[in-house]
């Protein structure tokens, strides 16, 4: 395999197997380098051991795990209730509108709200990740 130019971090998915080296061309001039390209090849273990990185991971887990558990339970409550307690779901709420339809419709808003929360929270992670990478940019 041809040696990578120093500072090129293009992932080698599974080492020497990956080809089509686009983005792995001649080195860019100094002033065009982005954070990822600048500096020496990365010591992954060093970043992984960094307290800020650990904090970033923890922050992600504390959001993603509860959010996933929540939406899975909320979603499967629908087929469960509709399937096993149809009498409950067929109760009319307003005119002919019943709980079954309203609960199904609420799933759409649930999905949008969870997604909106995620976007807001993830923007914070982006900042943390950028700050972390800036530390290792030499």
């Amino acid at each position, binding site marked *: 395999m041809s040696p990578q130019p120093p500072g090129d*971090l*293009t*992932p080698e*998915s*599974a*080492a*020497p*197997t*990956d*080809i*089509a080296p*686009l*983005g792995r061309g001649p080195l860019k001039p100094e002033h065009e380098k982005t954070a*990822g390209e600048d500096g020496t090849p*990365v010591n*992954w*273990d060093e*970043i*992984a051991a960094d307290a800020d*990185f650990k904090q*970033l*991971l923890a922050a*992600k887990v504390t959001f*993603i795990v509860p*959010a*996933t558990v929540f*939406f*899975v339970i909320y*979603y*499967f409550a*629908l*087929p469960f209730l*509709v*399937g*096993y307690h*149809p009498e409950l779901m*067929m109760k009319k709420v*307003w*005119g*002919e*509108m*019943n709980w*079954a*339809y309203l609960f*199904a*419709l609420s*799933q*759409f808003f*649930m*999905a*949008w709200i*969870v*997604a909106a929360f*995620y*976007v807001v929270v*993830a923007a914070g992670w*982006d900042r943390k*990740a950028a700050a*972390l*990478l800036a530390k290792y940019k030499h």
Partner: protein
Amino acid sequence: MMISFLAQVAPAAPKQSNTALFMFLAFVAATLVITYFSAKKSSGSSAYFAAGRRITGWQNGLAVAGDYMSAASFLGIAGMIAFNGYDGFMYSVGFLVAYLTVLLIVAEPLRNAGKYTMADVLAYRLKPRPVRAAASLSTLTVSIFYMIAQMVGAGTLVRQLLPGVSYEAAVIGVGVLMVVYVVFGGMLATTWVQIIKAVLLMSASFFLSILVMAKFDFSITNFMEAVSHVTFTGKDGASVTQNFLTPGLLFKNPLDQISLGLALVFGTAGLPHILIRFYTVPDAKTARASVVWAMILIGLFYIMTTFFGFGAATLLGPDYLKVNGGTNMAAPELARFLGGEWFFAFISAVAFATILAVVAGLTISASTSFAHDFFTNVIHHGKEHRPGEEVRVARITAFVVGALAIVIAIVLGPTVNVAFLVGLAFAVAASANLPVILFSIFWKRFNTSGAVWGLSVGLASSIGLILISPDFMKNPLFPLKNPAILSIPLGFIGAWLGTLLSHEPESAEKFTELTVRANTGLGAEKATAH
């Protein structure tokens, strides 16, 4: 198969629609122009497979939505709601909620750590050849099943609209067009075909919904009142009035619904043609934005399915639809009723565009996986012997895959029930692909043997269970229509057991690097220079 085809008599002799023909041709012409311009830019692997990673968030959002809202959604769900009421809407709900799995768990790590295909992420820390071979097999399986369903749908639709055109000719026409998009235009042309289609589909659904509600003076109360009293002829010939808001008209067994829900919610995050879309954007942040755009569009679209699905049930009624094109023509027939011949032609052309776009998306995912994973990485050990070889192989594969899908769609014929093919695709994606994607991102101990086991067990169990399900057997050994409830756990167990059976310290070693890359985007593939 010719005989069975000729013996088939259409329910009612449909009229030739010149307006519809004109609109088909206009869409095809517009997309061919795009393909021509994309072809000039599609040189090199990154440009061909990932549109140079220069697609913006909203563009990719539209394209993801375009890839996802297939003919099964537009024609199939509208028909399902028109005939079975509430239970048809359950599909709509699952299709949207599925995107939370994509958004929260899969999209960003995938974008940060991969290159062109789902297998890139799997192969990252595992032995690439066995893993890529297995992943490529499951990608091809999912894509081809999904594709055949779309092509059969296209053949049926065109035959309804243009009786002069035979089913075979329609299938060949769709097949040839999609091969042209993919072979010449690559990912860039495919993306733009998706974007145009998504815009057309959203506006068509919006107008259709508005026209339905206009019939009810824009009153939800009046609309729901009508939906709760749908009259049709029952099996015994007597007239039945049924509340279409009642659950359970389609799914008699609650486990059927739960199993379908599992396939939808966990299958989407394993659909290769959706996953590869995240490589077309510059970074993980844009990948996230594109999922959000897609969720807005897909959500609005599936909420609208209740307007035109219930609209078809109340304004036309199942009896009328049964003799006028059947389940799949509920949306176009409703358009004819509400907006006349012109609107009918427009809706039909949109449905046709939908099919073409989805088929093109599937073709490119199948050919990318074959060229990148199997040809280059498995057969040639990751070395490109001549420059441009990978793209050339992908083009040839697109041609072969297209020809294969044409032949299978023609052999199966227009009468095949396509719903089970799509269900199979989702079930395979959920049972084979998702467990190994999750484990390779989150489980340090995970290794090559686990990935190969997980992919094979998931693939075999989902297909095996479908073969012994009520869709295939008179006395089914497995009682549910969708295998997901059993095959997803089996996929996970396969991946877990396979991992425990072998030791691979290299895989655990590279886990640190993968975690850092996946979570920070350090060293991720960048957009190519213009």
